[in-house]
């Protein structure tokens, strides 16, 4: 599981929303290790 925080200053945030969605969709984590 991951937590993703994305921010920008108030003047440019709207211009970054599509970028943030692309970054979020790019995240891939390896499988959770099996318990020992």
């Amino acid at each position, binding site marked *: 599981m991951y937590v993703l925080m994305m921010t920008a200053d108030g003047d440019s945030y709207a211009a970054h929303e599509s970028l943030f969605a692309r970054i979020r969709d790019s995240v891939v984590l390896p499988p959770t290790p*099996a318990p020992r």
Partner: protein
Amino acid sequence: MRLSLAAALFSAALAFAPGASAQGAAPLATIVGSPLPYRIDLPKGWEIVRESEVVEHGKNHVVAGRGGPAAVVLLATDLLEGTPFHGPGAEERRKLTDMLLGSDSAMYEFLNGHGPDAHLSEVVREIRSLGGQRAAYMKAHDESEDEPHWFEMHVTVRTESCTCS
């Protein structure tokens, strides 16, 4: 949930951010974590910071990127045994993620990692959609810097496992 390092990276990213620029169509480059191979695409030319955050029973793996007026922090929260969010398998990971995404109070809790509210004014917290997916949203005026500024942010928690072996 402890997000102290992430919050510090987040604040630092904004504090050093130079002037605004539109980056919606910026080309992305893949960042691969180490030793755990999580992946995230961030705009080419962004400054990248990699850290590990010690939590009660283990570590979170953190990567932060910043460029222009924007910053992104990724915490891989459950990849090591002993961390609070570690589950025995993909199904448990998915269930926990669905539970957090379905709880407004849990989503708002992620927003609390961004510094003490005493430095913030005119705070707006909402549950919104980012690209069609649920995310916590916050807008506030930060008065803790030499140059007070407005900022907006989205926080989301998700599960994505690669199909690689």
